[in-house]
């Protein structure tokens, strides 16, 4: 099977090379047949990478340990759905996933534009196939997903237990879908620049792809945050870790892009800005892939050790230099058709919002790369989350404010009179929220959180007013009842109202973030069975210990699970019973005793939390395993060196039973992390609302199919006229 996968990749590389040649030659010589052929090369790339992807995925599902990647990332004891996900936990598998997704989206866009943008598409095809060539080239020459082992091991090393979480299964495909979808507007921007077609047509053709990229990248980031909150034993959802920042940066420039293209579509302005944004986003997506996969940010010295360093840096440098050169070369064509009429206009607010988003991206970029930059000058320095927050929180506040102002202000020029009219209601929302919050204990002491709540109320006021006015107008026009009027309003203006829902969701998310950061109470305590700790007025009693082996309730495949039963109460009233635990997995360190090996892999927390609309109570336990170590050593010693297979299994089982009984009956004290934080649930609710809004904006309008059909007929007529 491996040979089929390897062959598919080699064919894919050849197809890419041919396709690049054919599209460029076709574009230069005006040979449609070559351009057509290049289009088919994109489909062929999709086909061949699908074959390669399927071969590797099947090997993972079948636990075929003759594949070296399968042996090092999966095992027979890994639950089946995690076997499937183990494929992209590997370096090789993740790169294959990247190029496979790229080929699918490329095929889709190349198919959808087959009758349009005749000058731009050949160049865009060449760029997309260039991506394809780079990644298949990596898979053919640098990292080898289809390396086989002469002697297949009986079992593999298993998927890293930390990654055994539902959110982590789909997080990489989401993230990579976002990255690869952004490659499409990137490629079309390059095509538009080379072909001198810098009107808004390339934007219209790829807008949906940019929006889908933005949506899926956002989903990927959120799933990562959710994973961090419910799987990692520290109880946070965002740590400003380099890996997180890597995915946030292109999302921010992408957000700026989907706002600013509206100005180009409506007013023919900001052309340089738009192409620069989308080119930067495309580059940041590749940078994001690279950062996560190279470990370079730990130290510049990791660069030499990483197999991917040189090719990726070459690609990123090439993309950056090429993009800048192209924009400078075509600067004459990128002049605005209009100029900014007034700073009191929607264009100006959009521009400001763009500047804030780009500033956010720059701040995050700089702080993420600070260790690397300072290391070059000798003394490596790094900054933690507080420094990130110091710069990003004020910018986020401005962003929220602008998202409230933008929809209210007129295009071109707003008059003071219509400003008063449109702003009265939303400002009232904000003022009421401010006054009400002054009476909520502790809130006035946290000015930044208070500001976020007030601005949030202002934005919600804006959106409510917009929806209300639209519904009233529609009701007056058609006589529809109000709920129906809202629905048809949204149906008919998907982009606009979808956008409002996204704003609503993001504001709710920000309010959740502000509340849960500013008013969180976290305690790390060491408790014996029967002892009680107090966190923010909640009494947490360690009722008893739990221990199970080979029957792990969360389905992660842990061999041994040690946990606790916690009774949470407030003012003597029962709130929840929580069951945090910690799973122990086999280790691959052969130098240890056999029993130690069975349970000495990386343990992972199984978090227990009581979630609610006002407050989450979050708990994790970390048993003091060092107190059990003497017993583990004794079990190891009790297993004779030349024991038979059956005897060994009996011995190990007896050991596990003994350990389980010991932990249940007389557990050593355990460390608990207990967190009480308000409004966390609203982060996820806000995210879901945003995703819903994004889907509304993405969904084709009811009459789009008809319009598409007319456009196709028009194109055919034009074609025929051209021939005649």
């Amino acid at each position: 099977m491996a040979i089929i996968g390897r062959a598919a990749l080699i064919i894919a590389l050849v197809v890419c090379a041919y396709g690049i040649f054919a599209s460029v030659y076709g574009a230069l010589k005006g040979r449609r047949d070559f351009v057509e052929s290049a289009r088919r090369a994109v489909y062929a790339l999709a086909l061949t990478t699908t074959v390669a992807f399927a071969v590797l995925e099947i090997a993972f599902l079948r636990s075929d340990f003759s594949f070296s990647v399968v042996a090092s990332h999966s095992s027979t004891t890994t639950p089946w759905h995690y076997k499937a996900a183990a494929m992209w936990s590997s370096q090789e598998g993740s790169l294959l996933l990247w190029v496979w997704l790229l080929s699918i989206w490329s095929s889709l866009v190349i198919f959808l534009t087959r009758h349009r943008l005749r000058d731009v598409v050949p160049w865009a095809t060449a760029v997309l196939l260039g991506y394809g060539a780079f990644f298949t080239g990596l898979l053919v020459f640098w990292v080898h997903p289809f390396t086989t082992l002469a002697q297949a091991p009986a079992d593999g090393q298993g998927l890293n237990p930390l990654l055994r979480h539902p959110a982590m299964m789909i997080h990489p495909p989401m993230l990579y879908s976002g990255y690869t979808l952004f490659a499409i507007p990137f490629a079309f921007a390059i095509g538009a620049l080379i072909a001198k077609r810098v009107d808004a047509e390339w934007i219209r053709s790829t807008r949906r792809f940019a929006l889908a990229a933005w949506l899926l990248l956002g989903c990927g980031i959120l799933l990562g945050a959710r994973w961090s909150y419910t799987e990692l034993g520290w109880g946070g959802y965002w740590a400003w870790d380099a890996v997180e920042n890597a995915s946030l940066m292109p999302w921010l420039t992408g957000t700026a892009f989907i706002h600013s293209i509206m100005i180009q579509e409506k007013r023919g302005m900001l052309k340089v800005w738009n192409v620069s944004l989308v080119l930067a986003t495309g580059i940041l997506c590749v940078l994001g892939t690279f950062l996560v996969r190279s470990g370079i940010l730990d130290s510049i010295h990791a660069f030499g050790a990483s197999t991917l360093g040189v090719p990726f840096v070459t690609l990123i440098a090439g993309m950056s230099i090429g993009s800048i050169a192209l924009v400078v070369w075509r600067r004459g064509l990128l002049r605005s058709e209009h100029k900014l009429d007034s700073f009191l206009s929607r264009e100006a607010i959009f521009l400001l919002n763009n500047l804030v988003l780009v500033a956010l991206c720059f701040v995050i970029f700089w702080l993420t790369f600070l260790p690397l930059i300072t290391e070059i000058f000798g003394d490596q320095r790094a900054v933690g989350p507080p420094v990130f927050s110091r710069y990003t929180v004020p910018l986020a506040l401005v962003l929220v404010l602008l998202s409230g102002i933008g929809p209210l202000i007129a295009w071109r020029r707003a008059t003071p009179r219509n400003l008063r009219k449109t702003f009265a209601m939303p400002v009232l929302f904000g003022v009421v929220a401010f006054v009400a919050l002054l009476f909520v204990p502790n809130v006035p002491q946290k000015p930044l959180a208070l500001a976020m709540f007030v601005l949030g109320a202002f934005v919600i006021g804006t959106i409510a007013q917009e929806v209300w006015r639209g519904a009233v107008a529609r009701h007056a026009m058609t006589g529809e009842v109000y709920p129906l009027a809202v629905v048809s309003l949204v149906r008919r203006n998907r982009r606009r109202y979808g956008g409002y829902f996204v704003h609503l969701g993001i504001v709710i998310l920000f309010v959740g973030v502000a509340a849960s950061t500013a008013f969180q109470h976290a305690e790390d305590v060491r408790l014996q069975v029967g002892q009680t700790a107090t966190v923010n007025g909640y009494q947490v009693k360690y009722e008893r210990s739990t221990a199970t082996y080979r029957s792990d309730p969360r389905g992660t495949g842990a061999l041994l699970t040690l946990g606790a039963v916690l009774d949470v109460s407030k003012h003597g009233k029962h709130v929840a019973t929580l069951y945090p635990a910690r799973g122990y997995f086999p280790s691959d360190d052969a130098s240890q005793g056999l029993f130690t090996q069975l349970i000495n892999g990386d343990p992972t927390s199984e978090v227990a939390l009581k979630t609610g609309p006002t407050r989450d109570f979050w708990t994790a336990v970390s048993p003091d395993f060092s107190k059990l170590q003497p017993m583990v050593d004794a079990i190891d010693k009790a297993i004779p060196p030349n024991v038979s297979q059956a005897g060994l299994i009996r011995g190990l089982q007896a050991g596990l039973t003994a350990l389980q009984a010991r932990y249940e009956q007389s557990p050593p004290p355990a460390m608990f992390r207990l967190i009480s934080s308000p409004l966390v649930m609203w982060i996820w609710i806000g995210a879901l609302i945003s995703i819903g809004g994004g889907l509304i904006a993405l969904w084709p309008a009811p009459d789009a199919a008809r319009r598409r059909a007319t456009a196709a007929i028009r194109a055919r007529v034009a074609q025929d006229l051209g021939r005649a």
Partner: protein
Amino acid sequence: MDPARKRRVRLVVALTAALFLAGGLVYTSFSAGSPAKTPSQLLAGSTPGSSYKLTGKVVDGSIRHDGSALLFRVRDRDGTASVPVSYTGSVPDPFRDGREVIVTVSKGSGDTFTGEKDSLITKCPSKFQADDGSGSTSSMN
């Protein structure tokens, strides 16, 4: 003023403002960061009161609990020089003997360094690790 000139002036003003802001960020972030040190560098000299990002590996068998404090020693990535750390706060799941960690510390009483609350991090398991293969991924070379 003719429009082209006006545009140019506006562009120069905007770029200057952006440069100043970026400069401010660069300058303040340099002083906000704490210097990264290895255990042997800390042993060679450290100023009481200033904080450092201590990077290295957890010494095998050095992890102890003392009340809610976690005591452990961090050694050089490739070496044996090590310093004791007393830490409170969240402990990442992958934390254990031999694991590479980064913790913000300051010089406390005696030889022990005091870890800043919640500052302990271990290398992210999803990252590619070329040298030690201790994470989820391993290299093919």
